[in-house]
C-alpha cells in the first residue's frame, strides 16, 4: 500500500487530491485517525470513483468536491460526509450513524439497509431509495424513484418532491412523508393521518436537513399491517 500524498494542511484541513492519491490510501488514512478524532478532510478530483470514505468510524468530516461513484460513505459511523456533486449507486448504504449529505442527485439504493444516522439528498434519488432501511433518516429534496422504501423496517423517509411507483412496498414500521404526488403505492402501504407527533418529527427532520418546506403540506405513509402474517386472502399481494 502506498502512502497518502497530502498537500500541506490549510487551517488544519487535510487536502487530498485523488488524481495523485488512491482511494485505498484515502480510506486507510481515515480509518487510522485516532479514536474520537474530529479531523477535517477535503477531497478533490473524485471523478466518479467508487467506495470513497467507506467504513468510517470516527467523528471526522469529509468534504468531497465532485461526483462520486458507488457506495460512497457506506457503512458510515459517526462521520459527516459532504458530497458536492452526484452520488452513484448505494450512497450511505448500511450507514449506522453520522450524517451524509449529497448536494446533487443520488442514484439507486441510496441509504439501503441503513440502521441510523441522517442521509440528505438535495436533488433527486433514483429507484429503491431507502430499500430495507432499518432506522436511518432520509430526507430527499427532490423526487424518489420506483420501489423506494421497499421492505422499510424502521426509520423515517422524507420526500419533498414526488415518489415513483410502488412506494413503500411491503413496508414494516418505517414512516414515509411525501410532499408531492405518489405515482402508486406498493403492497400494504397506505396513507395515514398526520398527528401532532408526526408533524413534530417531520419539522425536526426538515430542520436537520436544512430545509424550509411546510410540514403541513406532506402526507404520511406507512404499513397497513395486513401482510405481517400469511393469510390466504392476501396471496395475490405477496
Amino acid at each position: 500500500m502506498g502512502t497518502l500524498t497530502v498537500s500541506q494542511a490549510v487551517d488544519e484541513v487535510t487536502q487530498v487530491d485523488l488524481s495523485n492519491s488512491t482511494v485505498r490510501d484515502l480510506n486507510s488514512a481515515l480509518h487510522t485517525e485516532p479514536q474520537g478524532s474530529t479531523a477535517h478532510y477535503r477531497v478533490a478530483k473524485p471523478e466518479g470513483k467508487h467506495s470513497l470514505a467507506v467504513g468510517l468510524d470516527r467523528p471526522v468530516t469529509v468534504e468531497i468536491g465532485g461526483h462520486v461513484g458507488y457506495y460512497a460513505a457506506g457503512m458510515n459511523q459517526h462521520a459527516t460526509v459532504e458530497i458536492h456533486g452526484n452520488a452513484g449507486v448505494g450512497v450511505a448504504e448500511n450507514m449506522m450513524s453520522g450524517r451524509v449529505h449529497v448536494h446533487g442527485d443520488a442514484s439507486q439504493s441510496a441509504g439501503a439497509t441503513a440502521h441510523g444516522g441522517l442521509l440528505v439528498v438535495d436533488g433527486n434519488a433514483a429507484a429503491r431509495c431507502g430499500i430495507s432501511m432499518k432506522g436511518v433518516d432520509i430526507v430527499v429534496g427532490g423526487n424518489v424513484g420506483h420501489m423506494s422504501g421497499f421492505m422499510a423496517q424502521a426509520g423515517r423517509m422524507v420526500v419533498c418532491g414526488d415518489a415513483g411507483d410502488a412506494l413503500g412496498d411491503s413496508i414494516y414500521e418505517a414512516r414515509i412523508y411525501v410532499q408531492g404526488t405518489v405515482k402508486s403505492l406498493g403492497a400494504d402501504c397506505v396513507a395515514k393521518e398526520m398527528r401532532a407527533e408526526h408533524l413534530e418529527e417531520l419539522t425536526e427532520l426538515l430542520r436537520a436537513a436544512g430545509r424550509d418546506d411546510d410540514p403541513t403540506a406532506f402526507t404520511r405513509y406507512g404499513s397497513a399491517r395486513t401482510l405481517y402474517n400469511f393469510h390466504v386472502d392476501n396471496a395475490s399481494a405477496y
Partner: protein
Amino acid sequence: MCGIAGLHLRDASLQPQLGSLLQTMLCQAAERGTDAAGVGIYGDASLNPAGRATVCVIESPLSAAEAFAAVEAVLGQPVEGRASGQTSVFTAAVAPEVLEAAVRAALPGAVLTSRGDNLSVLKGTGHPDDLATTFKLAEACGYQGVAHTRMATESAVTSTGSHPYSVGPDQCMVHNGSFSNHATIRRELMAEGIAFDSENDTEVGARFVAKQLADSADVEKALRLLCERFDGFYTLLVATENSFAVVRDAIACKPAVIAETDQWVAMASEYRYLTGLPGVESARIFEPEPEVVYAWER
C-alpha cells in the same frame, strides 16, 4: 455485468477526437467486463470511406490478405480493407448489400459484425485495453460511437458473443443485462425466416429492433415495442446512422447515466467513464427513467 458507453457528437470540431474519447470510456468500463469488448464507430473516413460500402467480419476462415483477394474475386471490383485484431474490414465502391453478398460467398463461416455506409463494428474476445490497441481506436474519428465490455453470462466467451450487435444497415446495439425470454422470441423470429449468428440473447434484441426498423418504425417506437415484448434486465444503447438512443427495463437495476452538453451527448454504465470528456464538469447529468426511450437525432 457488462459495461456500456457511447458518445454522440454535436460539435463537429470534436470528430477527430471521437476514437480517443471513446477509448477512455471503454478502458474505464473494463472493470465491468474483461471477457470481450467491441466498438461501433460511425463516420470514420478510413473505415468508411466516402462512396464505399463497408462490411466487417469476425471468424474469417482466411487470413486477411487471402480474404481481400477472395472477396475481390467474387465481387469483380477492387476491395480495400484492413485487419483490426479479430475483425476484418472490407470496403468497396458498391452498395452495402452487394458487398455483403460477396463477403458471405467468399468467406463461408465468417460472421458479419456490420454492414453499411457509415458504421464499422470492431470486436473480439480479450481485455478491452488490448483490444482498443488492435482496433487502433485512439486514431479513429467520426460523429458517434458505442462501446461495450463483456462479462459473459447468457452465453459463452466467444467472438460472436461480443458486442456491439449490428444486424441491420448502420444499426448497432450494446446491452448490459440479460433477456429472460430471448429463446421464445428467437424461435418466433426464426419462424419468420430471420437467421442468427450466435447463441447470444442480445442478438435477439438486435434482430427484433432491426425488424421493427425495417417495418418502418423509428428507433423510439422500435424500443418501445422491445420493452413490451422482452422480459429481463437491460440497459440498451442503440445507434443508427442518424440516431442515438437509450432505454432501460422497468426494474432499472442495470446502471445508466446520461450526460449532455452543447457539444455532445454521452451515455455510460457509470459516471466515471465520462470524466475524460471535454466540459463534463458543466454537463447536464441524469439517470434515465425506466422504460422511457431517450433518443437524439443528428
